C-alpha cells in the first residue's frame, strides 16, 4: 500500500567502498553499503579475511575448501581482490575508494595506508586513543564493560555472556551511520575535507546501557540483576511457557495490566489499585507470578498472542530458530533471503530497513577469495 514508484537504481550506486580488514564490524558496515548498491571491494590478504574462518561453517564439499556461512552473510554482493597489506597505497580498489574501512589491529604495518588522502573509517574495539587501546577485545568484553552482561542471569550469578557477534554488529552499524553522515555532509557541501573517522565498538554499544550511567549520576538506585527474564521497571515482563510454546509478555501501563488480567481471567488482581503502578507490580512479583504461570500454562501461546494484541497488549510469540523461517509475518516481508556461496545456498537475515523506491539487494552471491583480482589488475593496466 505504501509502496512508492519502484526503480532499478540503488542509493549508493557509484559509491566505491574498500574494506581492507574484514573483521565482523568492518564487514557489517560495508555490507550495509553493498546491500544498497555501493561497489564494495574486499582487499584481502593472501590467507583471506578473518571472517572466512568464522562458524557456522558450510558442510565441506569433497575436496573443497571449508567455507564460512558467516562470511557469506557478511560479504555477499561484494568483490574480492588479494592485496599487499604492507603497502595498500598501490591497490586500485584503495586508490579509487570514496571510503576506506579498516580496523587498525589487522594492518601489518602502521604505514599501510600512508599517503592515502581518501575518507577513512577506522572501527576498533576501543577507539584509537585511551588506555584500553591495546586491550584484547571481544563481544563479551564489550558487553561486560558496557554493563549489559551484569543484568543477565540468575540473581546469584554468574551473569550470562550473550551469544554471537552482537557487539561487533552494533559497532559496524554505528560506524555505517558515522561514515554515511560524513559522506552526506560532503555531498551537501558542509564538509570539504576528507574525514578520518574513529569508531569505537565500546562506545557504539553504550547506546544499550548509557541510561545506567545517567541514573547512577542522579543517584537513582541501581537496578539489580533480578533473575532470568526479570528487569526493572515493570512486571509482568518476561517469557513464560504456554501449552504450545513460549509467550513474551510486557505490561507497562495500567490499561495493559488490566487487559492482561482480563485475558487470563485473573479477576482477583484487576481492581487492585496498588497493582496499577508498574513498580508496585514488580515489587509484588513473587505474589503475582504463581497465578500468572498457572494461567498461561493452560492457554495456547499462539491464541493468546493474537487475542492479546487485539486487546492492545504487547504480547509476542518467542519463535525458535527453526520457527523463525516460517513465521507468516517474516515470510511475507522476506525477512530472510538466500545467499549463494560456491555451490551452496542458505538463508540469512535481510537488511532490516527498506527504501521502497530504491529497494536493497535481497541475498546474493559471495565472491571467492581473490576472484576479482584479475579484473581489477586489468582495469589498472
Amino acid at each position, binding site marked *: 500500500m505504501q509502496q512508492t514508484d519502484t526503480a532499478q537504481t540503488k542509493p549508493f550506486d557509484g559509491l566505491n567502498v574498500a574494506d581492507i580488514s574484514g573483521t565482523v564490524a568492518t564487514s557489517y558496515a560495508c555490507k550495509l553499503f553493498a546491500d544498497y548498491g555501493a561497489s564494495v571491494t574486499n582487499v584481502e590478504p593472501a590467507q583471506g579475511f578473518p571472517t572466512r574462518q568464522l562458524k557456522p561453517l558450510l558442510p565441506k564439499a569433497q575436496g573443497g575448501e571449508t567455507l564460512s556461512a558467516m562470511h557469506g552473510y557478511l560479504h555477499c554482493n561484494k568483490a574480492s581482490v588479494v592485496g599487499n597489506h604492507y603497502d595498500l597505497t598501490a591497490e586500485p580498489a584503495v586508490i579509487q575508494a570514496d571510503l576506506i574501512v579498516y580496523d587498525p589491529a589487522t594492518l601489518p604495518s602502521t604505514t599501510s595506508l600512508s599517503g592515502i588522502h581518501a575518507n577513512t573509517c577506522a572501527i576498533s574495539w576501543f577507539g584509537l586513543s585511551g588506555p584500553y587501546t591495546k586491550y584484547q577485545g571481544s563481544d563479551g568484553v564489550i558487553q561486560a564493560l558496557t554493563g549489559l552482561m551484569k543484568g543477565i542471569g540468575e540473581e546469584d550469578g554468574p551473569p550470562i555472556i550473550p551469544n554471537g557477534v552482537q557487539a561487533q554488529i552494533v559497532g559496524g552499524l554505528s560506524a555505517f551511520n558515522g561514515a554515511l553522515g*560524513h559522506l552526506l555532509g560532503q555531498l551537501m557541501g558542509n564538509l570539504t575535507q576528507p574525514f578520518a573517522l574513529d569508531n569505537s565498538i565500546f562506545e557504539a554499544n553504550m547506546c544499550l546501557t548509557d541510561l545506567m550511567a545517567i541514573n547512577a549520576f542522579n543517584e537513582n538506585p541501581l537496578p539489580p540483576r533480578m533473575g532470568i527474564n526479570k528487569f526493572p521497571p515493570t512486571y509482568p515482563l518476561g517469557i513464560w511457557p504456554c501449552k504450545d510454546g513460549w509467550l513474551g509478555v510486557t505490561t507497562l501501563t495500567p490499561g495493559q495490566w488490566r487487559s492482561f488480567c482480563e485475558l487470563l481471567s485473573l479477576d482477583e488482581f484487576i481492581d487492585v489499585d496498588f497493582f496499577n503502578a508498574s513498580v508496585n507490580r514488580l515489587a509484588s512479583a513473587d505474589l503475582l507470578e504463581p497465578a500468572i504461570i498457572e494461567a498461561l500454562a493452560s492457554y495456547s501461546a499462539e491464541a493468546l498472542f493474537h487475542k492479546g494484541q487485539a486487546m492492545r497488549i504487547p504480547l509476542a510469540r518467542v519463535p525458535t530458530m527453526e520457527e523463525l523461517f516460517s513465521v507468516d509475518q517474516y515470510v511475507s516481508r522476506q525477512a530472510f533471503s538466500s545467499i549463494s556461496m560456491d555451490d551452496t545456498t542458505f538463508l540469512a537475515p535481510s537488511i532490516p530497513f527498506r527504501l521502497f523506491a530504491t529497494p536493497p539487494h535481497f541475498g546474493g552471491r559471495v565472491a571467492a577469495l581473490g576472484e576479482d583480482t584479475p579484473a581489477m589488475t586489468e582495469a589498472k593496466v
Partner: protein
Amino acid sequence: MSTEKLLNGLRIIDLSMGWAGPLAARNLADMGAQVIKVESCTHFDWWRSWEATPEWIADNGAEKALPYLSVNRNKLDITLDLEIPVGRQLLLDLVAKADAVIENYSGSVLPKLKLDYPHLKAVNNELVMVSMPAFGSTGPWANYRAYGSTVEHSSGLPHLTGSAHQPPAMQHVALGDAIGGLNGTAALLSALWHKQKTGQGQFVDLSQVECLIPLGAEGVLHQSVHNSPPPRTGNDHPDFAPHGVYPCQGDDQWILIQVMSEAQWHALQGLCTELSGFGALTDRLERRHALNNTLAQWTAKQKSSALMKQLQGLGITAATLSNGIDLLEDEQHKARGYMQWLDRAFVGSQPHPSLPFRNGPDPSPLQNSAPTLGQHNGEVLGGILGLSDAELEKLAVDGVIGDKPTLPS
C-alpha cells in the same frame, strides 16, 4: 567543518516517541540537522511518563524524566493537537518545508489521522518518510504493538542466550529500542543521501524486530546450514576453555575471562599457579567444570578491576562486569571525554554520551539539552510558518498548543 554542523540545512520532523525513534532522530540532530519534535499536551512522549497523574504534572514531572532527556537533546520541541483540524494542518505546513519525517506509532495511528505517507507526500513530493513500527508497515502483524522487550521476544534471540536448562532468556529490558534506533538513523541517512543525489524522496519501512535478527545471525545461519539451532551452552564455549564469568572480591563483583589461544592460556597459568594441573586444550575442554571451579576460587580473592588490568597486561581477554557508577568512572571513557555535560532546566547538569564516532581526537561537542514541552512553539510556528503572536495566542487558548501536559478528560 566539525561533525555537529555536518547536516546543517536538513530539517526533520520527529513524530516518534519512547526510545527507538527519538534515538534515530537524535543522531541526526547531533550531526547538525534541525530536528523538530512534535508532541501534544494530551499525547506527550510516553517516555516522560506512562503513568501520569495530577501530582506528577504539578511537580513538573514531564521535564524530569531522564530517559526522555537522553534521546531528545539537540532538538526543537513543539506541541500540536493533531486531532484538531488546525493542528493537523499546521503539521502538514511544517512537513511541506521539511526534508524528512520519522515516526514509530503502531501502524493504525497515522492513517486514522490522515497523516500517513500518501497524505504527507501530497504536500511534499520530495519527502523522505521513515516509519518504524515494531513489525514493519506491511504483513499481517503490521498493526501489532510492541515495546523493545516485545521486539526481543519476537526476534528469536532469547533462544540463543543462556543454557539449555533455562527458559529462553532476555538480555535487556528493551533491547529492541536502541538497536531499532541505530537502524532508524541508517534508514534516514540512506534515504536522505539518495534524495540529495536525485531529488527523489521516498517511503522507508523499518521493522524493529528485523533490526534485531542480525544480532542472532549466528543462530539463524546455524539453523539454515545444519537444520538445527546452535546448542545453548551458557557461558561455556565449544572451542575454548577457560571461558566464563568468575566471581571476584565484593558483592556481585565479576570478571569475564575468555582464553582463546594457547599463548593466553600459558600467560594465565603463569599468573595463577593453581591452574598448573590443567594441560592442553583438549584436557581443559574435557575437565571444564573442574577448571572453572579452580579458576573461580582464585578470582574470588581478586578485585575485578585490578585483575582486568593485570590480565589484559598479559594479553588475556578479560573484562570487569561494570554497573552504572563504573560507566561514569571508566578510564577509557574519561580519557576520550566520552561523557559530556549539559545544563537543563528542572534537572541541572546532566551527563550525555557522545556520538560513538569522531573525526579527530575529540568527540563532537553537544550543543543543547533536551527541550521542554512546547519550548519552541514560537520559534517554529512563528519563525518557520510565519504565525503571528496573536495567532499563537489563539492556538494556545484553543488547546492546539501548550507547554504543560494535560490528562485525558
